[in-house]
């Protein structure tokens, strides 16, 4: 019962913070609300006994990616005055694409059947040892493919950042 209560509190926090990300006028506040949102999602992982996933989520998203995002937003110094005025055509296109995305989401939600929550068989399912064993046995190929992708991205970043010699 108490875990259900925690779930509802976390879910409310996730949705409210996600709404604030969209509705904040200052981009800095958007970024900060997004960090709050990530924390509430990490809370969901903890409720589901996936401690490792929760902490990695915080380290990677809140600790590294959002820091860089905040970094960029702060240095760009985005103010309300300098915000470019959007034409009606762009607004119209945005409404149509957003509406189409909502249609897809609604259709997907209608066709899914609501399932009841099944508790994991063992408490330790989300522990780091078990996640590691799964990653290096059953999911070996996707795991290695992801690393190759990361290396490609890293090399690309280095090439882009390197000064060209004249």
């Amino acid at each position, binding site marked *: 019962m108490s875990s259900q209560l925690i779930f509802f509190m976390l879910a409310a926090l996730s949705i409210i913070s996600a709404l604030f990300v969209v509705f904040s006028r200052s981009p*800095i506040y958007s970024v*900060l609300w997004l*960090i709050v949102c990530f924390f509430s999602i990490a809370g969901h992982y903890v409720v589901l006994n996936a*401690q*490792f996933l929760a*902490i*990695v989520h*915080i*380290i990677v998203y*809140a*600790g*590294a990616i959002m*820091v*860089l995002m*905040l*970094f960029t937003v*702060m*240095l760009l110094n985005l103010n309300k005055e300098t915000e470019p005025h959007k034409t009606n055509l762009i607004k119209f296109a945005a409404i149509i694409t957003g509406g189409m995305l909502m249609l897809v989401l609604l259709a997907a939600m209608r066709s899914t059947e609501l399932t009841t929550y099944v508790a994991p068989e063992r408490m330790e399912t989300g*522990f*780091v*040892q078990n996640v*590691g064993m799964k990653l290096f046995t059953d999911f070996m190929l996707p795991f290695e493919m992801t690393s190759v992708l990361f290396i490609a991205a890293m090399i690309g970043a280095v090439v882009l950042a390197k000064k060209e010699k004249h």
Partner: protein
Amino acid sequence: MSILMFKGILVLVLFLVSLGIAAYSTYAERKIAAFLQDRIGPDRAGPFGLLQPIADGVKMFLKEEIIPTVSDKLLFILGPSMFMLTALMTSAVIPWGKPLEFGGVTYNLQVADINIGILYIMGVVSLGVYGIMIGGWASNNKFALLGAVRASSQMISYELAMGMSVIAVLLMTNGSLSLNAIVESQGTGKLYGFINVSGINWNVFYQPAAFIIFLVCAFAECNRTPFDLPEADSELIGGFHTEYSSMKLGLYLFAEYINMFISSTVIACLFFGGYNFPGIEYASTVLPANVVSLISVAALFGKIFFFIFFFMWVRWTLPRFRYDQLMRLGWQMLMPIAIINVLITGAVIIFFGN
């Protein structure tokens, strides 16, 4: 006494101890600086100047509180609060001593023995950068912003090498990430397999390279000299806290000392056996269990105080790095050494067993 109540008391005690040690670190820092520079140091407030931290605290509280009119007020207040919050959060997963026993009930001297202890610490450390960035940006001052940018890029860069050096240690403790397990594994077994003294099977004897990398990274994470570029006063006035006054400045300075205390604790736990002390098994055969527990707490604090002293010693000995030197050290030296160290440790464990 229920376990929950005991944990509550433990949290309160840890909070007070962290603040007390941070307060007296300021005093110790000034005394050590004075000693190294052949001065006397603070000696007016109380005997040997021992009331100096209290005088400083009162002064901080009574100073005028200035919030710049062009700043973002909410974020300006949020900055130091977040920095303090993250500094105090880390102590939750540290095992402070062997369990105490009263009336047949065992009380663990650790607030939360979670099985991702060391990752929790890395996570909280990586959040510490927000306090600095938000505060530096909200001040609306170019020096503060530059200090914040320096601080965050420095902390992100050194976190990686820090994590890599910890992996080598984790490989040796059968992959357990719990700090309790890491500390316990250093209290049993013989050092190098033949030196038969209990409680000194410390990781530093197996992983000296990881220890040095971790130490250097800890200095960088705490923004201490020789890596105190975020607040380099000759270049940036005061760095990210230029616009802060009164207790908000106090919170920033105070949190820095708490960070130093926690870094020393983590170093002691990962590499110097935590609460283990030489002869711990013999001591537990001749002394009551609770006495051994108290000695183990004292042993941990002895190690912590040594490292706090070391932090100060380095501060008054080494000059500051240049920014490009800092980045080169972090990325081109510490990082490759840490990765090679992980590979060698893994290879040794595979080919020679433990």
